[in-house]
């Protein structure tokens, strides 16, 4: 029974996600996409219930929307990070990019106090996309592994921020700029939540488009995708560009929420990767859904909130993240069937007589 589920899910998440979803009815397509990330939704539900038990007032509108507002930057970053990871890379520069975004915005307002917020936002997103473009070109054209390319970019950006600000950014962010990250759009619903929903919809549409399919195909097997006519370099570069732009949007949210800070984005790069991994997206690319990655971000934030309510020291958050990443990736990479066989052979010949429910799911599938 277990084996059957696994196989079905595997089909949904793998090839179907790339080529088959288009043939399904909208309802089935929706269900299929949900199943693709099923574990993270279960996890999210469990964590939310735990949070509700810990703090019964949590689901009242004000605290709940405050929680979503705080989660928004990570959700946006997870969507951007997903694009890079699913195409087979990593983007470690998003945290530094958020910091740079906030600091540069403050400096911009320092120099041009009357600047209109739409202009500043547009410049910020363009700047983020540009940094992403550099990341992408360094990765694809110069063939520097994305891990190193974006780590280098992190150091470059952090050094530049420190040099520019001397560790203490000048200026403040005016209220109209901060509205998106801090104020509500209508009723108790914050702008940040609206923005997250919009980005979620855009991301889903994007992943359903040709671009999305070629992105996943590239991450799955770049060589095969290239032979099939995918412009691998362009697709991968574009993923970095979009991740950079997402980081700029996150900077708008973080800056709006907190104001000027020289450590606005600290730790966000790793949180975003953790969120994506938690969403069931395979490191190395080729599988996973963007909605699940965003749900992973929400799960991570829920977990942090739970830890806070339980009185766990803030410092433990990074430890928990480390455990999540290693555990999720290790378990995801584990060859269950092989392990089972080896284990069975090792433990006792008696066990060999027992039926093996998950004989070899891959064998069944292919």
């Amino acid at each position, binding site marked *: 029974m*277990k084996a059957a*589920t*696994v196989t079905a*899910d*595997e089909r949904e998440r*793998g090839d179907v996600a790339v080529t088959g979803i288009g043939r399904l009815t909208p309802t089935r397509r929706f269900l299929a996409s949900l*199943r*693709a990330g*099923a*574990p*993270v939704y279960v*996890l999210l539900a*469990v*964590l939310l219930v735990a949070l509700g038990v810990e*703090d019964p007032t949590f689901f009242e509108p*004000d*605290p709940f929307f*405050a929680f979503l*507002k*705080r989660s928004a930057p990570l959700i946006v970053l997870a969507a951007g990070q997903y694009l890079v990871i699913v195409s087979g890379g990593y983007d470690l520069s998003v945290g530094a990019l958020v910091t740079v975004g906030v600091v540069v915005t403050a400096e911009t307002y320092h120099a041009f106090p009357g600047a209109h917020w739409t202009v500043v936002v547009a410049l910020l997103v363009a700047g983020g996309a540009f940094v992403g473009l550099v990341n992408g070109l360094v990765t694809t054209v110069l063939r520097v592994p994305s891990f190193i390319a974006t780590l280098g970019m992190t150091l470059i950006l952090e050094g530049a921020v420190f040099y520019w600000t*001397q*560790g*203490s950014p*000048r200026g*403040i962010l005016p209220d109209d700029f901060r509205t998106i990250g*801090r104020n509500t759009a209508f009723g108790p619903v914050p702008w940040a939540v609206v923005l997250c929903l919009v980005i979620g919809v855009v991301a889903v549409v994007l992943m359903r488009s040709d671009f999305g399919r070629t992105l996943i195909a590239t991450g799955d097997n770049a060589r095969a995708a290239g032979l099939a006519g995918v412009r691998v370099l362009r697709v991968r570069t574009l993923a970095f560009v979009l991740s950079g732009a997402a980081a700029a949007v996150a900077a708008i949210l*973080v800056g709006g929420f*907190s*104001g*000027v*800070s*020289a*450590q606005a984005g600290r730790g966000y790069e790793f949180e975003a990767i953790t969120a994506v991994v*938690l969403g*069931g997206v*395979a490191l190395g690319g*080729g*599988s996973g859904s963007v909605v699940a990655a965003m749900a992973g971000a929400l799960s991570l934030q829920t*977990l942090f909130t*739970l*830890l*806070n*309510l*339980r*009185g*766990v*020291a*803030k410092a*433990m958050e990074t430890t*928990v993240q480390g*455990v999540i990443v290693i*555990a*999720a990736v290790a*378990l*995801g*990479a*584990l*060859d*269950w069937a092989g392990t089972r066989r080896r284990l069975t052979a090792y433990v006792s010949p008696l066990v060999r007589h027992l039926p093996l429910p998950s004989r070899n799911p*891959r064998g069944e599938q292919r």
Partner: protein
Amino acid sequence: MKRRRLPVTVLVAAALVVTASCSSDKADSTSATKAPVPGAAPGNSASPGKGDSGDSKFFVQADYDRQSALLQATPQGPADKPWEQMLDPQQMVDTTQYKKDGPYEICFSNASVANNWRQTGLKNIQAEAGTHPEIAKFTVLDAQGKDDKQISDIQELAGKGCSALIVSPNTTATLTPAVKAACGKIPVIVFDRGVTTDCPVTFINPVGGYAFGRTGAEFLKTKVKPGGKILALRILPGVDVLENRWAAGKRILEQGGLDVVDVKFTDGDTAKTKAVVSDAIQRHGTIDGVWMDAGDTAVAAVEAFEDAGKKVPPITGEDQQQFLEVWKKKNLTAIAPTYPSYQWRTPIIAALKILKGEPVPKEWKLPQPTITVENRDQYIKPGMPPLHYAMCGCETLPGYPQKWGGK
């Protein structure tokens, strides 16, 4: 074999993660009693004072008593120039041995400009140096918050023919040997943070950390009902000035029957402060008072209460423009003890006194005013930037207000 895509494995991973986080919950809540940040396990109200017993080395009763007395003392010197005033100068130093003719080169080894208070201060000292024609050259080296850089900065400045050396040490103990070595070559003036040697000709600072911490805590004692929950926000551990503030603040809050539910470090960063305060509100339901060891991030703390839909409780800030403005605009219950940045003017004045052979106090104590709701509005300076420190004493200096970012 290709990579696996088994949702069930991820589910197992997720389950493991939840288990792991639960066990870390437990691990922490058992140790919460001795942790500096008492946990908030249900029904287990945090007991203040069990934590950070290590702060006793930062509490010296005699120093505390002296600062308390100095807070009340009448300063000597011109009333309109507090940076030239001195409180209870107990020992005047004869400086005839340092007397020499100008023009002078005054050198300054600065710890860092890593916060807005220090940025305001640096402008003060530069402007003050500019007002004295007998100072031909004013050289500043910035250690960027690094002890090793400041040690080499001091060595360099002491060896290059400066007439006098001003030092604002990055840390107390580590910089002491470097200052000692410089004392043998040229007259040294230390200000702001101290060193553990009395070789500098004079040490300039305001009344001190105990008085600062005490002022805020006593305000909260009068404004918060007994048993009220206090959130204490500190920048970072280990700096004597800041440790003294908390050592005094903690004692008074506890003696006043207030419940210090959380003591958190913010790095002086707005984003971190807002997160810390939001978490504390979430964890404790309500916070009845906020004590801060520095006011850089007081506005972020105020915002966290607003965004959580809570009334802003009594809060201690500092003389930063944006805090004073928010205080007035939102009619907060607040107080602003200050660590006046006009103290950056004094080292130049002291250096010239020393080079002219005039006596200076061994320990030059400056007045340390407090901004209350009564005198607040006089410190709100229209046109000055939000991060400007009002107690700069810079209004009469050339280049004000443009050099300080004002209009």
